[in-house]
């Protein structure tokens, strides 16, 4: 079946081609590490390996780290496995059930188009481009993926 996984992280609705989704995991503990590139604030452990977590800034209850359990889509990329934060309301939908449109002037290089399903728009992610942008150090400036945790930390420090 050709289709998409449809996910939501806060205000962000996004779609991933089904062929790239390895698994959806729940009840995962995520861990902060020092010096992570912008766009990645945490890692999780899957099958004994560290997996970078994306979109955690958009997910609910992201302010705490090691005691935070949520839902993550494990997605294959040219840079290895990535974990994309999502709410538990994710679903798999066949391509013909929705409407595809190609982004004409995409503001995000990693958004290739839009998949509209039941009146809701989901940004279709080009996961390899997304990972490349993070590897280039554009995760914060161009993608606006991150920053919430850092902002929280700065506020904490200011109030110290």
């Amino acid at each position, binding site marked *: 079946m050709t289709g998409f996984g449809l996910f939501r992280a806060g205000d962000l609705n996004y779609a991933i081609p089904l062929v790239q989704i390895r698994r959806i995991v729940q009840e995962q503990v995520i*861990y902060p590490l020092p010096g992570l590139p912008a766009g990645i604030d945490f890692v999780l452990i899957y099958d*004994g390996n560290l997996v*970078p977590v994306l979109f955690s800034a958009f997910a609910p209850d992201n302010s705490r780290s090691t005691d935070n359990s949520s839902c993550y889509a494990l997605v294959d990329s040219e*840079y290895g496995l990535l974990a994309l934060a999502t709410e538990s309301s994710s679903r798999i939908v066949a391509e013909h059930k929705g409407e595809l449109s190609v982004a004409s002037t995409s503001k995000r290089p990693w958004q290739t188009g839009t998949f509209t399903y039941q009146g809701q728009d989901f940004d279709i992610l080009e996961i390899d481009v997304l990972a490349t942008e993070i590897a280039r150090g554009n995760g914060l400036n161009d993608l606006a993926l991150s920053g919430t945790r850092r902002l929280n930390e700065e506020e904490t*420090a200011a109030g110290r």
Partner: protein
Amino acid sequence: MAGTIGRVLVFSLAEIRFVLDLDHLVEVLDQLELRLDSSRSDLRQGIVAALDFRHTAIPAVDPTLKLGLVSATRYVDRVALVLRGSEGNWAVLVDQIEGLMPADALVRATLPVLLKATPEYSDAQVMLADGVPLVVFEPERFYGINQGVA
């Protein structure tokens, strides 16, 4: 340091767990309020205070400055790990001691490609203990003539 062979110290800092080879450790100090003199600092080197250790003032380094982390724990409420260095003893201020564990309980984690691509992780090590990541704390990165080189 008899009895420490094959064991490591686990501590936390800014919600991140680190692991330290006990060969580096001289002593652990808490209740720092009367030991720290923050007027003697050199922030360019990460030194936030002088620490009174056995009637000698030694540099106390806050690793969060170099790591870009923020700890909610005040310096006086932290724990000082006194380490031996090439220029004498110095101390690192951490949030909390988690405990000791046998070194063979740690498994080296393979770093994701996205992390290995960054300078911070080009030679960094992360270990796993019961599925929990522990960052290997390398003292030479934080103080001494070779700091930042390793």
